[in-house]
């Protein structure tokens, strides 16, 4: 199967979906699911066909190519699978909305352009697909209008800055080497001067850091995540943002190459070391800000930023364990964050768009599947053993500790503990505790929402117990970067400095649970009690107000609140404000009187003449 066909199917499918939507909505829904599922199958069929390069177009003398590497296959698989699940999930979520045709068009278009990004073999196609992705994302973020428009604006401004930086890098590469093909570049660039390489890393790095929301370039993300329609937020958080990680991998390890990247700079001021520290900061601060959020989607969004830090930390650290951990974490994060956003969306769908954590509770009895999704999601996010998040974090921690970076390890570890606090609040306030009176008759989530949730929950468990499955692919990726590959078994990693064996862990926990369950069973049978029958010092329970949610960690908030404002966001707003004031002042000069303009011109000429006479500049 050739790659052009794949991309043609992806792009053509999205347009066709839009057209079909004009005929009937049922047809459109069916076709959208069909296209996205067929893409998964096609990409799965490409497994192992590494290195196939196809040139598909000639553009101003440049050859535009597509190619597969283990890295691109890995990302494409994740993109298409999660995209398909999100489309399935959207079916009922978007049913009674307006502009659904447009929504599906954009959704599939984003999917297709992400596939284009990972398969593109030269920087021009990379840039084109990148821009397509950014602009369609902008349209979908502002889909809900109102405050969503502002969020979209914020996103697109940042995105354009990133694209410009990338464009500068591309143009300079083209000017120097007369080619945009990634593979040719990677051969040519290795002989460049370190200064030029650093320039390349910084300009491309800015673009990818914006996309991956690394501090201090993260501020577009929380609003964008919160305001986008929830099934799209899943895609946005899961894969789209992580195109930044793909970009980092591409520029650092494919184009410039591991040897050059890891030796740039001196001592503590190495490029990759600084990037790792940026990643570490990105882990800690957003995780603590997340604790203060009361909006379910915003809370998850801040975690999205924080988890991005782990990926960057792992990738930038530049050991084989770290790299494997970083790439694996990208996949894991995609799985559980998509799952979490889907659970929130399922709740939103039934409660009429409610996402205020303080006003819900007790939904576990009403929406068990959504709860299971949320539970597995947060377990993965925390990185509990037996979930996929654990394995990738384990890899990262291990390399940080054994290669002598305890402070980086500390930031990464403390991020986990901060995560627990906020995600428990998330789970508790939505699903546990007392069910408010108004949600008494709430129904289960529809089947097409349950299917993706169940699939993703099982995947989290599967990759947690048998991490060898994805790690084998990741192994080939890091081998293609020129690193020593890991000794991976199906259930863990073998090494002399401490190995991991998840199947043992799984067996132990399972046995423990079964034994304790049996003990509990042999005791007298317990009576089930309703939520009204809890101890309240003998008083009977006031209905609907007996749930401790508001200011869940109040004592702690009082301690940390002053330190945890989003200073960068405030700074950017200030910057925008200053620019506006400046422009206003400049605008004052345009008075509208011809006389004034003539004066300006005369003054300008006078200055020019003065300068020429004084310094004889030209």
């Amino acid at each position, binding site marked *: 199967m050739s790659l052009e066909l794949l991309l043609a199917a992806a792009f053509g499918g999205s347009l066709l979906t839009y057209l079909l939507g004009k005929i009937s909505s049922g047809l459109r829904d069916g076709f959208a699911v069909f296209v996205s599922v067929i893409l998964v199958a096609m990409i799965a069929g490409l497994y192992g066909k590494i290195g196939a390069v196809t040139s598909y177009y000639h553009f101003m003398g440049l050859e535009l190519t597509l190619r597969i590497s283990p890295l691109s296959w890995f990302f494409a698989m994740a993109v298409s699978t999660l995209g398909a699940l999100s489309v399935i999930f959207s079916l009922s979520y978007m049913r009674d909305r307006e502009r659904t045709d447009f929504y599906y068009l954009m959704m599939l278009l984003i999917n297709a352009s992400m596939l284009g990004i990972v398969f593109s073999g030269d920087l021009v196609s990379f840039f084109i697909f990148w821009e397509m992705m950014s602009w369609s994302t902008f349209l979908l973020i502002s889909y809900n209008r109102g405050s969503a428009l502002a969020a979209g604006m914020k996103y697109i401004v940042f995105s354009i800055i990133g694209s410009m930086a990338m464009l500068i890098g591309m143009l300079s590469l083209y000017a120097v080497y007369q080619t945009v093909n990634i593979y040719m570049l990677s051969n040519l660039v290795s002989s460049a001067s370190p200064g030029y390489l650093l320039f390349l890393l910084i300009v491309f790095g800015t673009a990818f850091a914006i996309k991956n929301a690394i501090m201090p370039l993260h501020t577009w993300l929380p609003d964008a995540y919160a305001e986008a329609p929830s099934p799209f937020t899943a895609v946005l958080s899961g894969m789209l943002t992580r195109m930044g990680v793909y970009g980092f991998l591409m520029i650092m390890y494919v184009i410039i190459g591991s040897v050059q990247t890891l030796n740039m700079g001196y001592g503590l001021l190495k490029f990759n070391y600084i990037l790792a520290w940026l990643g570490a900061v990105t882990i800690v601060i957003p995780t603590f800000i997340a604790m203060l959020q009361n909006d379910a989607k915003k809370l998850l969004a801040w975690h999205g930023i924080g988890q991005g830090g782990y990926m960057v930390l792992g990738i930038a650290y530049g050991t084989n364990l770290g790299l494997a951990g970083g790439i694996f974490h990208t996949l894991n994060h995609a799985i559980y964050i998509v799952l979490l956003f889907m659970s929130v969306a399922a709740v939103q769908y039934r409660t009429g768009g409610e996402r205020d954590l303080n006003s819900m509770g007790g939904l*576990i*009895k009403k929406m068990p599947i959504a709860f299971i999704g949320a*539970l597995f999601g947060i377990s993965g996010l*925390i*990185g509990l*053993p037996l979930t996929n998040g654990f394995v990738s974090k*384990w890899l990262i921690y*291990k390399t940080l*500790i*054994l290669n*002598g970076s*305890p402070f980086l*390890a*500390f930031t990464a*570890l*403390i991020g986990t*503990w901060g995560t*627990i*606090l906020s995600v*428990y*609040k998330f789970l*508790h306030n939505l699903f*546990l*505790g*007392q069910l408010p009176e108004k949600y008494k008759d709430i129904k289960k989530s529809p089947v097409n929402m349950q299917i993706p949730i169940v699939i993703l929950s099982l995947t989290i468990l599967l990759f947690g117990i048998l991490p060898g499955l994805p790690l084998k692919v990741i192994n080939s990726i890091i081998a293609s970067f020129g690193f020593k590959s890991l000794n991976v078994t199906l259930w863990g990693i073998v090494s002399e*400095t*401490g*190995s*991991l*064996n998840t199947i*043992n*862990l799984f067996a*132990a*926990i399972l046995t*423990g*649970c079964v034994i*304790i*369950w049996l*003990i*509990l069973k042999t*005791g*007298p*049978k*317990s*009576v*089930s*009690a309703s*939520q009204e*029958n809890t*101890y309240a010092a003998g008083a009977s329970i006031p209905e609907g107000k*007996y*749930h*401790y*949610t508001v200011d*869940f*960690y*109040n*004592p*702690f908030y009082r*301690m940390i609140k002053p330190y945890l404002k989003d200073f960068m966001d405030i700074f950017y707003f200030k910057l925008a404000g200053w620019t506006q004031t400046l422009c206003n002042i400049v605008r004052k000069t345009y008075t509208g009187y011809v006389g004034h303009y003539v004066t300006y011109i005369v003054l300008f000429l006078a200055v020019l003449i003065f300068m020429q006479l004084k310094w004889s500049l030209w």
Partner: protein
Amino acid sequence: MQIIAMILSPILALIIGIFFLGLSRKMMARIHWRYGPPWTQPIIDIIRLFSQKSVTHGHLFNLGLILSLAGSIVVILFIPVGRIHPLSDSGGMLVILYMLLLAPLGLALSGGEAANPNTSIGISRQLILALGYEVPLLLILLALMTHYETISIVEIVFRQQYAGWALLSSPLVLSGIGYISIMPAILGIRPFEVVQAPQEISSGPMVEYGGPYLALATIQHALNLFIGIALFVNLFLGGAGNPLFFFIKMLVVFVLGIFINAALPRLRIEQAVQYLWRWPTLLALVGLIVVIVMKSVSAG
């Protein structure tokens, strides 16, 4: 052999943990100038609880408790007791650190379903307290792991048996003192008994547990006592060659802990976190820096 060790070590932990519970009640009574219950009292309580009918609030109410207890048992399989360490080669310290999460998190899930605000308050305190002591604890463990250049707890114990206790060896003294100063918080005894706080929030996360549930929760408490002390003995007192010496070391540490428990009143949660983030963290931080500096000096 492996299988026997797997069965033996949780049972050993359970016996020691329950003995410690009983001992603590007896000793507290003697410190208070009372006669006190027999030291078998926790066993009597557990028997009584197992014969009592309880209420359940749903599946997660059961499952959370089961999960939390199973988590504690698995942690015990990772901790060397004397020379018994059935599972410790499948993940090392990092797995222990993460498995330690299962216990509070399981209780939190279970308590969350109980739909009682007292539980929620208790859980929120528990998680805050955990964050509080986790900051110095992580620094301390990182100092140990950096010093010994391993993530395996068995290796750490092994090295100490040659080179002397970590608590008494030069770069790790500060970390050791730091660990001692946060140990009451890890064990959940006074002055850090903010989670249960029977007088304020009706024993917090336990408020809806009765009958067999409370029995399991008591067992969990016993196991947690064991884990907290056993970790200290392994990491800083060099473990032991056989379970008996190990037990004696644990006993000494525990008795000291009880004196602290009996002598001090309870802190408020903010005060607890403020304390934990001030002196112990400072000690641990200095300890870690010292370890790194010593390392680079000896290397270069």
